[in-house]
């Protein structure tokens, strides 16, 4: 079986995204390093790409955030039901407390009310700084 290395997310502003995934999503932030090479261009069919890259972690899960500083592309319209659109769902121990915390912060776009999505799951959605849907979910029994 293949083993997950990481999920990558291309962002507009890496510092802004690090702050979201660290302070809002509760992930651990790693070092930001500058990248770009002939080999990376070969793998990604690009030319002279320059990047800032970091890995955010939650348990064994790694989220790679990439900001292109050269040879970047378009800004995609993200929506949960757009084909190819990512979303991220994170467990929290107390989803009501998380909702209240984000409401108090005032700088995070909360895009849904609190919903009992299944008999044992209660959740709500937010958006990361680039509009990627991020769900916070509690297992209720």
């Amino acid at each position, binding site marked *: 079986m293949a*083993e997950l290395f*990481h999920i990558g997310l291309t962002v507009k502003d890496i510092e802004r995204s690090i702050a979201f995934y660290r302070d809002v999503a509760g992930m651990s932030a790693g070092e930001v390093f500058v990248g770009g090479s002939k080999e990376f261009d070969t793998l990604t069919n690009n030319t002279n790409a320059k990047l800032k890259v970091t890995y955010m972690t939650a348990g*064994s899960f790694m989220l790679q955030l990439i900001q292109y500083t050269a040879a970047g592309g378009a800004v995609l319209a993200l929506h*949960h*039901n757009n084909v190819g659109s990512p979303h991220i*769902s994170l467990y929290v121990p107390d989803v009501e407390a998380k909702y209240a915390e984000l409401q108090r912060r005032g700088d995070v776009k909360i*895009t849904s009310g609190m919903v009992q*999505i299944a008999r044992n799951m209660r*959740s709500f959605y937010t958006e990361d700084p680039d509009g990627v849907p991020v769900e916070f979910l509690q297992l209720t029994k």
Partner: protein
Amino acid sequence: MAFYRDVAEMNEGAVLEGENRASGTPSKEHSRMKMVHLITGTFVLQLIEYVPARGGGRDLRQENVGSTHISFYVPDVEAKYAQVKARGDVKITSPLTTMGSSLRGFYTEDPDGIPVEFVQTTK
């Protein structure tokens, strides 16, 4: 699902199908969805098909803001490359490439054009 099960070798869960009522998502434009979870280790990849879908045919190249990609470790990337090539039905988008001193990999695309990388740590 076939791609992530057969090519990425993830374990497939049950396919759920139903009306999308109070889903918690911001959209109200769809009526039905199919969903499946694919699992490798502790990672769960949720695939969702909305009926009707929207926003298809977009350019999901990695340099686009908001695009995602998935990177899998494999024990033998040369064997994986040969296996995927032999299948003939998977779009391989790069040659096998060595990155730095310890990674060797290649990129494919899933059926919707999401970049999927297979990589081996070489030391």
